[in-house]
């Protein structure tokens, strides 16, 4: 069998493996919904406060709350599969619609964060590994240690104090200056300007992670036999580092970028609520205050599904990057 069809089979098998996980998360979601005070409809509507009794009755029927628990679960599953996650009274919108609406700002923030964190992490790790055990290496290590221990929200607030309040360089909150009605390129520039502080804040933690990993990965590769071979051939140290070792050291960092997506979503809740970035994290923060539990459950479900999907994509990319990986 040739490689591409092998990969295709591998991907479809991984897809099938992902289904039980998603299913388990949906079931978990259902039980959490039941754990909350009152029945599901109270959570769906009552906590938002403005539902009419007729609507609540209709909802009870729709969710089959007069039926036994397994039936309720089946109904819930059916609704989720149809992407019906209920209604948010606070926002007067379908939860699914609301989540999709707020997904884009989060995606922008996450992509720019990953690019920044992975990019600089690789550079810093490489820099530390080349200057191993010198003061440069120590500076990078101390930097990584400190950023690894700093709470994200605090970094965000300090950024605001330094770069928005003391020096009026960047806006404190929001995604764009909607009062200006920018269009086209001007709008992109405006969004980018708002994006700077949230991205740096969210990047810092992961930057520390990737820096440490890149450094360790480089050191591990330096100890491999092929490096000795290259040296024996008379390849320059420079070429060994940048052509041979670097390429191999990058692999684990790429995987890690995927594994960390779950944590990144958690971090974006914090960062978005610090900078009032109008994404999913901010929506989660708002739903906490509105006690809109069903919306929170929807966000939770979607972010879990996102993690499963990203892990799958990373696995597939990894197959292409490293031909040594057996897909069987």
């Amino acid at each position, binding site marked *: 069998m040739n490689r591409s069809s092998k990969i295709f089979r591998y991907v479809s098998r991984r897809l099938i493996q992902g289904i*039980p996980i998603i299913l388990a998360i949906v079931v978990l979601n259902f039980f959490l919904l039941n754990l*909350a005070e009152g029945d599901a409809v109270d959570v769906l509507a009552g906590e938002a406060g403005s539902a009419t009794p007729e609507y609540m009755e209709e909802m009870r029927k729709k969710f089959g709350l007069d039926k036994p628990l397994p039936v309720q679960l089946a109904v819930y599953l059916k609704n989720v599969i149809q992407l019906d996650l209920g209604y948010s009274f606070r926002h007067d919108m379908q939860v699914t619609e609301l989540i999709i609406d707020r997904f884009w700002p989060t995606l922008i923030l996450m992509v720019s964060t990953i690019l920044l964190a992975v990019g600089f992490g690789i550079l810093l790790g490489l820099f530390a590994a080349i200057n191993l055990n010198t003061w440069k290496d120590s500076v990078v290590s101390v930097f990584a240690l*400190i950023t690894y*221990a*700093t709470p994200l929200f*605090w970094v965000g*607030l300090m950024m605001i104090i330094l770069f928005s309040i003391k020096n009026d360089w960047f806006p404190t909150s929001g995604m764009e200056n909607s009062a200006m009605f920018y269009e086209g390129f001007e709008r992109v520039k405006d969004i980018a300007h708002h994006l700077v502080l949230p991205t740096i804040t969210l990047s810092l933690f992961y930057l520390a992670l990737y820096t440490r990993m890149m450094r360790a990965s480089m050191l591990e590769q330096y100890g491999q036999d092929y490096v000795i071979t290259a040296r024996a051939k008379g390849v320059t140290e420079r070429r060994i580092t940048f052509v041979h070792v670097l390429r191999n050291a990058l692999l684990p960092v790429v995987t890690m970028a995927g594994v960390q997506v779950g944590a990144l979503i958690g971090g974006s809740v*914090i960062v978005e609520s610090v900078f009032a970035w109008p994404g999913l994290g901010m929506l989660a923060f708002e739903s906490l205050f509105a*006690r809109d539990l069903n919306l929170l459950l929807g966000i939770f479900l979607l972010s879990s599904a996102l993690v499963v999907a990203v892990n799958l994509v990373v696995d597939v990319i990894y197959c292409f990057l490293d031909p040594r990986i057996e897909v069987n």
Partner: protein
Amino acid sequence: MADFWKRFSRNHQAVLGLLILCCVIFLAAIANIIYPGDPFLYSKFPLSPPGENGFLLGSDSIGRDVASGIAHGAKTSLLIGLIATLAAVFIGVIFGAFAGYYGGIVDDILMRVTEVFQTIPSFIFAILLVAIMKPSIESVVIAITVVSWPAVARLVRGEFLALKNREFVQACHTLGMGDVRIMLAEILPNCLSPIIVIGSLMVATAILIESGLAFLGLGDPNVMSWGFIISDGRSMLRVAWWICTFPGIAILITVLAINLVGEGLNDALNPRLRERK
């Protein structure tokens, strides 16, 4: 023990971390002596800058002493970190031990469950759990426990898998020892080192999660914590930078110290790993 201490103290960063950690523990212990009374008590000097009106680190929008809040918050953070970690290690060890020791279908089922919990974005899960259970010390501890145990389970499973076929375990079987006794009395003591290391690092993570939850308004409203002070001082950022700054430094220093101690423990407890480096 002396040998362990010698190896530990060879790592200067770890010793520094331990020193800082002892200071934080000391601060938490004497919080009631140096700042007696309720840290929520307000005074008639709101928004005093550090050093004025007798406030070492300033006061917040209703005149609460930031330094007193930090001292009392130290107790909260350390206790929550410790209890949540102990609970997570307990659950993780049970899952990992059974999965690794029995293998087969038991392993399959337990590891599938672990996998689901590992896939779920942990911080959002913690938020959700606290929101459903209503914010309190207990619900925060439960939430942190629920999101932290899978890592322990994976680690312990690996250790049990590696150890269960070793000669000393086979000898126990021949002696007719029960499974539970072999697991608890024979295998578990042999994998304590990695558990201690991961546990110490988990305390740091737990403190970070707790402060994040408190920042989002999900802390216990009756218990002073570092995250609470910061979340409360947020709206005063423009006029009173000190309210948010000092508790954040407290979190940073504590978490850093625990991480350093954790790495020191790793070096001291796995001497072979250290020599390989």
